[in-house]
């Protein structure tokens, strides 16, 4: 069974992401900030991370960089979510190793489709 880590400081947002991705029938882990996300990654294996950029304390960019520092997560698919896409952030995000980028508000179908692709599921 696949495991998806949802990182966002808003509990509501995490709920909505989980709901949108429920057809995946994955196990979901949650983290409300960067440190927790990094901790979670070590405690259990994940196949996909959905990451909010604008979090207090540690910005999503840093989280990506730390994530890629793990041996086991160099190739972890990361899908970044944010309300706006700022030029520098976007370029840095992709260069820092994120695979996809979705703007909020997101369409559930869109998110699901992207997640499926990143998990290597056959297209529906």
């Amino acid at each position, binding site marked *: 069974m696949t495991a998806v880590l949802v990182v966002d400081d808003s509990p509501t947002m995490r709920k909505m992401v989980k709901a949108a991705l429920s057809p995946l029938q994955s196990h979901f882990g949650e983290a409300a*900030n960067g*440190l927790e996300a*990094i901790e979670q*990654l*070590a*405690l259990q294996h994940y196949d996909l991370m959905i990451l909010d950029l604008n979090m207090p304390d540690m910005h999503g960019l840093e989280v990506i960089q*730390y994530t890629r520092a793990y041996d086991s997560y160099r190739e972890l698919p990361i899908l970044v979510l944010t309300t706006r896409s700022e030029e520098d952030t976007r370029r840095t995000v992709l260069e820092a190793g994120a695979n996809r980028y979705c703007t909020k508000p997101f369409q559930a179908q869109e998110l699901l489709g992207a997640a499926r692709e990143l998990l290597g599921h056959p297209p529906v």
Partner: protein
Amino acid sequence: MEFLEDFTEEADELLQNINQQLLGLSEAATSSARQPIFQELLRAYHTLKGLAGMMAVEPAVEICHRSETLLNAARKGQLESDGRLVDLLLEGSRLLARLVHALPERTALTEVSTHLKRLQGWTQPTPEPPVATSGGSLLEIPELVGRHLQSEDWHRLEQGIRDGMTVGLAYFSPSPEQAAQGVNVNLAREVLLATGDLIRAVPLIEGSSVRFAFVMLHKTPDPPESLAGLEWLRLNEQPATPAQDPGEEPESWADHQRSSPISNTVRVEVGRLDDIMRLVGDLVVSRWRLQNALEESGVNERQGAPIRDSAMRIERQLRDLRQAVTRARMVPLSEVFGRMPLAVRDLARSSNCQVRLVMEGEDTQVDKVLVERLLDPLLHLVRNALAHGLESPQEREQAGKEPVGRLRLAAVPQGDSIRIEVEDDGRGLDLEAIGRSAGGRVPADAEQALEILCRPGFSTRLQAAKDAGRGVGMDVVRKAVAEMGGHLGLESHPGQGCKFWMRLPLTLTIVDSFLISLAGERYAVARDAVTEVMEVLADQIHHHPGGELLNWRGGALPLLRLRKLLGTSGPVAEPASPHALVYASGEHRVALVVDRVVGLREVVVRPMADPLLSRPWLGGATELGDGSMALILDLGQLVRHGVKT
């Protein structure tokens, strides 16, 4: 960037020379052998400093200046001229080369400030002090953690140590067992926060596991209690007294305190002033929202009086604030006038004329943005004057003039604007030639001639331009002046000379404007040229074959309808008794009918720079308090030309 290539070439030459001399310096055995080298080096740095100053590359100017200081001290024997000094200067030379070549992008180099500090603090050769790391024996942080700290973290740590606090490092290693009991990184963080300030939480990732390091500042010297499951180390020596003995302060901190002279000025990036200006603009808008809300709230006179008073007081304070910020952005015009002598010297040489440059009013203070945008148009006008306006010395003598021509650059403040004049005593305009090369009528006066000169097509016809006496780049000049919110004018006396002038508003951003509504949309119109606002009744309008006239004060005014001028129809019908603005331009007055004049307010002008939006009758746009935008109309243009593009 007119002289970029010349500058780069010359700068490269100078730097090459500097490098060579520096190498020679390191090989020179005796003091007398070194003297000529010092002279050569000082001359080179000095020249480079001057050039860099002309091109406004401040970091390079600074580096040259401090290098000169060091070299002088070395020349006088106050400093060891050894390999270390040469290395330092060679490094500086490499940095200068990068600065020179990075000029078009003006990339900021962080190494510059590091290098400047080293130049400053260079008294005795000492082992290289790391600038942004722990200072000597006072603080030792494991490199693994230290490398994640930012400069602001180091500052906080320095400050904390100076205040006698304890620097602690706590480690937390998460595990599934602990997590099952609710002990996770969040909890660790919370526990630590109760014992002091968290400088930074650093995840240390190794393989597939992680250990979190927390750099803390604690008030108490003893290990904080209640740190179950956390490893804690003290990082700094327990200080005897909070104050540091200045003599033992590690160099990196001393640099900050000792060597930078306390000055009365603060260098502020224009961008920051822009931000402040924007905030002031937002405040202006907020005040209007407040006013609107007050008016709509239906609060009665007596209750509303104190609120109204406060709103008015805020308005006054905002005006003062706006003025203060505007003053802060002001720089003397000499910043741009000062570049003219060099340009004039070169241009005069290449156009075979002799010229005396006279500048007036260079001390006038203007907004920094103006100064930046003025350079190009001024250079164009100066070039035109020298290339086409001024005759050769022989021609001048034959015409009974002095062989040396006169070029006058003047800045004259006029209330809210400034008038900049470029005047020469040369040939003046040849109106016939201009008319000929435009393939049409001879212009009747200088103003018409200016129109022709500023046509985009005109500037490309170089041959025609030569005959006509002017032309290269005039459309650029007019465009630049328009973008500054100003006006370009021309006076000419055949045989005696030519004067180009620009009237530029001093404060660009906030304009008192009437807010009007038209066909459901809102627009802003500058208050300046509007002399009256009134309601128009149907029986005041007379229809004529040539247009409409409005009864006004015993006479009649030509009447124009903004709806027609803009070609808008929109969902909202025209009111029965619309409002009209009386627009005055010189002696002419026109009544412009809109739907309603909604209010008068200070409007923050946002320029519309994209070519897609360039229209002579659009002066920008502004955000209204409620989140929507209003286009700013240039009434003069609209009234004269409508919206034809």
